[in-house]
C-alpha cells in the first residue's frame, strides 16, 4: 500500500487526502488528512469516494479520430499529427482568431498555463476561456 497526499478534484474547498494505491498501482481508497488546514479530517461524500471514477472502465485510454462519422482508435503520432495539421490549415486559411480554446477548471495550474501559452504563443489568439462562470 502506498498513500499519496493530494488535493481533491471536486469543489473549491481544496480538501486534502491520501489516495491509497495497492500493490498493482490501482487506487482503492481514500484517507482524509487531519493535519490539513482546510479539511482537518473531514471530507464530503464525493471526496470519500473519489477513487472510484479514476478506475472507471469508461476512462479514455487511446486517442480517437473521427473517420466517416465514427470515432476510431488511433496512435498518438497519428492523432497529434492530424491535430497539428488541421490546426495549421485553419490558422492559415482563416487566421488565428478563428480558433478558440476552452481551458479547464479541472486541470492543474501548470496545464492551464500551458494551454493558455499554446493559445497565445503557438496559435496566436486570446480566444481562451474556461467554465469559471458555469
Amino acid at each position: 500500500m502506498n498513500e499519496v497526499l493530494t488535493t481533491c478534484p471536486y469543489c473549491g474547498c481544496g480538501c486534502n487526502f491520501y489516495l491509497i494505491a495497492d500493490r498493482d498501482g490501482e487506487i482503492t481508497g481514500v484517507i482524509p488528512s487531519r493535519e490539513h488546514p482546510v479539511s482537518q479530517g473531514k471530507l464530503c461524500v464525493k471526496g470519500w469516494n473519489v477513487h472510484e471514477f479514476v478506475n472507471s472502465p469508461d476512462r479514455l485510454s487511446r486517442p480517437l479520430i473521427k473517420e466517416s462519422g465514427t470515432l476510431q482508435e488511433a496512435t498518438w503520432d497519428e492523432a497529434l499529427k492530424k491535430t497539428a495539421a488541421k490546426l495549421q490549415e485553419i490558422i492559415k486559411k482563416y487566421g488565428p482568431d478563428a480558433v478558440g480554446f476552452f481551458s479547464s477548471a479541472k486541470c492543474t495550474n501548470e496545464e492551464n498555463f500551458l494551454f493558455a501559452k499554446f493559445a497565445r504563443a503557438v496559435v496566436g489568439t486570446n480566444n481562451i476561456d474556461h467554465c469559471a462562470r458555469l
Partner: protein
Amino acid sequence: MYHLITKGLVKVWLRKLIKQGVLVAPTELAGGDVVFKEAFTPENVLLKFKKPLYSVKSYFLPQEETLFTFHDSSVNTLEEVYDEFPRIFFGLRPCDLKAITQADRFFNEGFQDAYYNHRRKQTLLMVIGCNNPDNNCFCHTMGIGPFYKDGADIFMVDLGHSFAVTAQTPKGTAAVEDYSYLFEKAAEEDEEDIFFEENSALSRLNFNMPQNIKLPDFTKVDDGFWEKASRRCFSCGSCSYVCPLCFCYNVVDRQNKASQGKRVRTWDSCVFEGFTRMAGRHNMFKTRQDRLKKRFAHKLYQYPETYGYPGCTGCGRCTVTCPGNIGMMSMIKQLAEEVSTDGKK
C-alpha cells in the same frame, strides 16, 4: 505476567517478527497524519503516536475488496480472491482490539464470511494500552477501558523507558518466548506503574464523559430529538466509514472493456437514502431523521440486546470526521440529557 522490553529493543523485536508477516503499525505520512501503515521494516514505526483517523478496519473490510473475478460475464470463469497475507498489527489500542474481536463475532455468527476469515486467519494482534486518550475518547463508557486486553495476542503498556509486555495466546507467547533474550522480567514496582498508568488514563477519560452515564429508554426519546439532530446530518457517510464497528457494505460489479470483470464490496452507510431505497422509490428510511434514529438505535440499543455491549468502542473517530458535529460522544451526552429533562417533566 509482564516482561519488560526497552524501547530501543522494540524495533529489534519487530524486525524479527516481520519475518512472519507484514507489519501494520502507526506511521507518519507525508502530510503529518498518522495511519496504520503496512511496512516491511520497522524503521518508521511510531512508538508514541496520536490515534490514527482510521482504525485497522480497512485491513479486514477494505474500502474496496474484490470478492471474485470473472471473464466475459461467465459464471464458469469465476475465481474467488482472498487476501491471505499474514499481518502483524502493532500499536493497536483497546478500542481497535474490541472492534476486531467484535468483527470476529459478527462475521461468523449466522453466516461465516470467508473473506473476513481469510484476512483474520494469520494475524498477530499487538495491543498497547492507551495512556494518552484524546479529547474525543470515551472507551471507558463503552465497556472497554484504556487497558482492555481481551483477545489480544500480546498486550503492552508504555512505561516510558520500556514496554511491559504480556502474552495472552499461544501465538503471542511464541512471539515473546522465541525472542526471550530481548526481555527481562518485570519487577513489582513495574506492575505498580501499570496500575498507575491505567488509572491516570481513566481519570483523563472521565474528564471527557462520566463513566456511569445513562441512556434513556429508546422508546421514550421523542422524534423531535432526532429531527433536530438530523438537521446537522449531511448524509455523507463519514461516520460509518471511520467507525471500526460499521461493517455495512455495498456490492458492485465492474467490468473493463476487455470483459475482465470483478465483483467488489465497498464500504456503505445507513445514512444514505439509497441504502434502503427499493425499486419504485419505496423506502422505509426516507428521511434523514429516520436514518439517524436507526443508526443510533442500532448502535446504542439493539447492539447491546444482541451482543451484550454497544456497537461503539468509544474511539471518537466520528466526532473528528462528522461535518455536522454529530459525534457519538455528543449524541450520548444529549441522549443522557433527555433522561434528566424527562425526569423533570
